């Protein structure tokens, strides 16, 4: 049993969706009941880690939404992308007595026991940026985008930049980053069947989430694989580091670089052609949507495919999953 008393544990463990759901909205209900009048909830938004641009921006979005809705948003996370640290933060947040916790899990399974504690404490649980692998536990799951779709999009962009045949390599933040691994798997299979002439030269190259590493690894790559025609990077530092190496070697025309990057950071490289296409969902929106859905649930509402969140016209809902919408592509035109 994962929780205080075995029976409670048993319940939460064997809980089916039905027994779970009422639990969820009653808890939501009491909240609204006893906090009637001042609906200022405490919503905790926990990123994988703090202090990197991507999660700083999602944080800005979340806080902005908080001000807009008049709820208190606590945006805090570990200073390293370490599941252990993250679980501790969640446990401490429960102690702090928040009304909702939205977590971007460093590991889909690791946070489950902690979230079960949260559930038992009557806290509304959401995940965002990456899914927690326990639907019964999660009241709402905010996906920036459908992973498979995103992975396939990245390959399409690569092909658009390098053509549909030739050698390409993959850069990733770290070999143990779950959602990047997920994308890479989808991408590899998709590329294999849709573009048979694409040739992945080696396993994904890890870059310790550091632009410096992406830069020097790319320098090595282009020498190790002289026929390399494309590089796709799946962490926001990768395309930038790669582009920088390409620019330095003056290979803009031989080698195409695409990948996920924050709009502002990508600008200079895209403008000088060393980075061909960057794509990412709107990071602020992701944070904002998370907070707004949390509030929506705290107010006692149920998720439904016809629900509306103001400011987010084109969200789609499927079960307890809320999709932010298609990613934005950044090309030369973007910065015109």
């Amino acid at each position: 049993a994962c929780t205080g008393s075995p029976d409670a544990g048993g319940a939460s463990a064997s809980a089916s969706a039905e027994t779970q759901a009422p639990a969820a909205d009653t808890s939501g209900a009491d909240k609204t009941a006893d906090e009637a009048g001042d609906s200022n909830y405490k919503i905790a938004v926990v990123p994988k880690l703090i202090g990197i641009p991507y999660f700083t921006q999602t944080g800005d979005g979340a806080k902005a939404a908080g001000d807009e809705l008049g709820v208190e948003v606590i945006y805090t996370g570990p200073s390293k992308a370490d599941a252990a640290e993250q679980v501790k933060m969640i446990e401490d947040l429960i102690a702090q007595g928040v009304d909702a916790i939205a977590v971007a899990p460093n590991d889909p399974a690791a946070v489950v026991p902690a979230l079960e504690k949260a559930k038992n404490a009557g806290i509304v649980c959401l995940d965002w940026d990456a899914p927690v692998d326990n639907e019964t536990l999660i009241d709402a799951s905010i996906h920036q985008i459908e992973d498979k779709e995103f992975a396939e999009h990245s390959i399409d962009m690569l092909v658009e930049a390098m053509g549909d045949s030739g050698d390409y390599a993959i850069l990733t933040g770290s070999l143990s980053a779950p959602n990047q691994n997920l994308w890479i798997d989808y991408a590899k299979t998709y590329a294999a069947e849709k573009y048979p002439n694409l040739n992945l030269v080696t396993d994904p190259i890890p870059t310790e989430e550091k632009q410096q590493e992406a830069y020097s690894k790319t320098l090595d790559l282009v020498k190790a694989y002289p026929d390399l025609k494309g590089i796709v990077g799946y962490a926001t530092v990768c395309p930038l580091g790669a582009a920088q190496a390409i620019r330095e070697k003056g290979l803009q025309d031989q080698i195409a670089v695409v990948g996920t990057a924050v709009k502002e950071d990508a600008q200079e490289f895209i403008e000088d052609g060393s980075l061909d296409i960057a794509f990412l969902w709107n990071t602020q929106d992701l944070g904002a949507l998370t907070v707004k859905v949390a509030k929506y649930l705290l107010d006692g509402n149920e998720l439904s495919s016809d629900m509306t969140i103001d400011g987010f016209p084109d969200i789609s809902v499927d079960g307890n999953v809320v999709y932010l919408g298609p990613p934005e592509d950044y090309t030369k035109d973007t910065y015109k």
Partner: protein
Amino acid sequence: MKAFKTLKEKYANELTLACIFIAVFIILGILAPDKFLTAYNLGSMMSQMPELGLLSLGMMAAILTGGMNLSICYIASLSGIFAAYVLSSDFAATNVGAGIAAAIGVAMLAAVITGLINGGVIAYIGVAAMLVTLGTMTLFQGIATNITQGGAISGFPEEFMALGGGNVLGIPVPMLIYIGAIIAAYLLLERSAWGSRVYMTGCNETAARFSGVNTKATVLKVYIFSSVMAAIGGLIMISRYNSARVDYGSSYLMMSISAVVLGGTSIMGGHGSVIGTVIAVGIIQIVTTGLNVLGINRYLIDIIIGAILIGVLAIRFLSKKLSDRNLVKARTVKADVQSNTI
């Protein structure tokens, strides 16, 4: 009275730490009685502490010999991963008890092997511990990444969750395991013959060897001990996070070293106490949790921890200096009295 006084001298450092611990605890209690002092929070702190605690005990043993174990975090995750493979196997699914037992066995086996690698190269080849474990840190990480392909292993039998999440008489199981480990560590390091060999070897390896101490075996065992502590920590982690991954607890390395030195263990080896380390871990735990609960910015917490580290050691140094001076003063006075009477 006298006994108490000698006790006070002997454990001056531990007493200081204990006072700090209590002081911090009280302050936090006053600042956030409704959050910090809740049964829930105390419970969650008790289930959080063992991870760092066990790694710190393992680190301490290595540091006692004048060494260091930089690979300790990856020993924890590697043994956790091996255990996870057993736990997620069909075998464990069908017959749970045996599965869990096997998993623990496998983790311990991994611990012994990693310990033999570290200890063997350090003791029998004579390479500086820092260097060896620097290498094995990368090596073990590499192995863990390789066999998991960077992914997570999950799907353990419910019963295994008890290890990290269960309670006995309201005390979290991890805490109970931790207490057991503390007692074991105390008996082994501070009461057993091997323990005193460890301390003496840590102070002066040559003299120990010239005294017929099998310093090689002594050091080898230290690194096995270190690995075992790490592995227990690893088991608790995978149970708490009901999955295993290479980077679990990777942020504990510097923290465990800090805890050990904060606990009064000399980095040159040969001096330090289990209880000191334990209290130091406690201090770090309540400070981080307390400030988290108060909603203090994560970075400020890092700053505060750093400040505590330096502050405590500064106090330790200054107070020692002071007490020495007083001792000398007392002596001089006494001496004068005598010379007058003569």
